[in-house]
């Protein structure tokens, strides 16, 4: 037996979990210092592992209760199964509670947003009313006796007549307000855009009002172009005053 064969035999014995032929290996180990060292280690471990395994105390453990309790905390135990722990909250209710906890902030947030939107839109006409109404240099006079187009209305049920009348009234009111708003906006529209090199068609920010410009300035051409249709609709027969 040479050293390679010696090593190979030990490896096979380890892998196959069997004890080697001591006499053969001892004979070779006696003639080779390196193999003697390997052989001594082998014998030492053979004994040590044997005693180590024998010294293993018999396992006496019962982990079922703590494992089930931990699994219950993790939500792994079904509520339908038998519960041996009194007073333990069932998993679905725990999950449900968690779900409800996660939904409530969303509901409250949505409610707050809706409330804010309602407040803003409810207060909007009042805010517009607070705008200082300096005498405009150009405004539209709209009277309540706007002529109603003479359109033949077919005979319809009374309810429908009311509906049509309401719609017409709403349209007149809307038209009136829109024209008013358009003339009010005039106050905030100074004619400085050409000086600032801005686009004269769209730049209407009130922040650009010069500090020394207290008086309203005339509207430039084109600013009211967007409102022309309102003027035409509201004042078809009356001339605009400046």
């Amino acid at each position, binding site marked *: 037996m040479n050293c390679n064969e010696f090593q190979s035999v030990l490896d096979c014995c*380890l*892998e196959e*979990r069997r004890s080697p032929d001591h006499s053969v290996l001892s004979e070779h180990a006696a003639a080779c210092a390196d193999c003697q060292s390997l052989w*001594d*280690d082998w*014998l*030492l*471990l*053979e*004994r*040590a*592992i044997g*005693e*180590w*395994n*024998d*010294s*293993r105390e018999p*396992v006496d*453990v*019962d*982990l*079922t209760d*703590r*494992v*089930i309790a*931990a*699994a219950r905390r*993790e939500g*792994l*135990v*079904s509520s*339908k*199964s*038998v*519960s*041996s722990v009194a007073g333990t909250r069932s*998993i679905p209710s725990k999950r449900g509670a968690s779900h409800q906890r996660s939904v409530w902030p969303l509901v409250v947030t949505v409610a707050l947003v809706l409330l804010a939107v309602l407040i803003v839109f409810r207060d909007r006409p009042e805010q517009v009313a607070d705008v200082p109404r300096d005498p405009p240099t150009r405004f539209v006079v709209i009277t309540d006796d706007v002529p109603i187009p003479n359109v033949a209305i077919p005979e319809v049920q009374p309810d429908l007549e009311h509906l049509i009348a309401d719609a017409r009234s709403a349209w007149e009111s809307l038209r009136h307000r829109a024209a008013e708003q358009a003339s009010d906006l005039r106050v905030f529209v100074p004619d400085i855009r050409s000086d600032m090199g801005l686009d004269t068609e769209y730049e209407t920010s009130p922040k650009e009002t010069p500090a020394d410009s207290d008086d309203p300035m005339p509207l430039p051409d084109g600013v009211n172009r967007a409102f022309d249709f309102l003027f035409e609709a509201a004042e078809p027969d009356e001339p605009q005053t400046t």
Partner: protein
Amino acid sequence: MADDVELVQQCLTGDELAMRAFTERYQNLVFSLCLRMLGHREDAEDVSQEVFVRLFRNLSKWDQERPLRPWLMTIAANRCRTALERRSKLPGQNEVALELAGERREHSQHRAQEVDIGDEMELALAQLRDEYRTCFVLYHQEELSYQEIGEILSCPQGTVKTWLHRARLQLAEWLRGRGVVHCS
């Protein structure tokens, strides 16, 4: 195997009784491995509990065509390695463990007037790297094959052989240093 499949399917529904039966069936296997790996009973109980909870959480991932035991051992070995890593990061833990082991050995010596090789082995195992110790325990205690250990530790069989060989060399060196010799 068929029993395992049926039991696992019941556990998957969250059936408490099935989970209890499963735990009772495998708790000795898991706990003994954890005890050998960690050398501390309370730690072994904690890690064993973790093992079962993790297992119940991941039962649906178990390939029912393959045996359950290696899969369970994989989870247990990994949990033990994690616990050992966690323990090694705590200052002074190794020293405390060595002191406890030393006291136990001295007490054992005083009682029997001879070296307790089982205790020396525990002490020597505590000195090994985690992967060497895991290999050694799985091979010599759980009697798993190289292939099974390789699957558990996610490494090739050659690596398992190398780790086991190094573990044995270091253990032998430690035992010799402690005056343990084989009786020829």
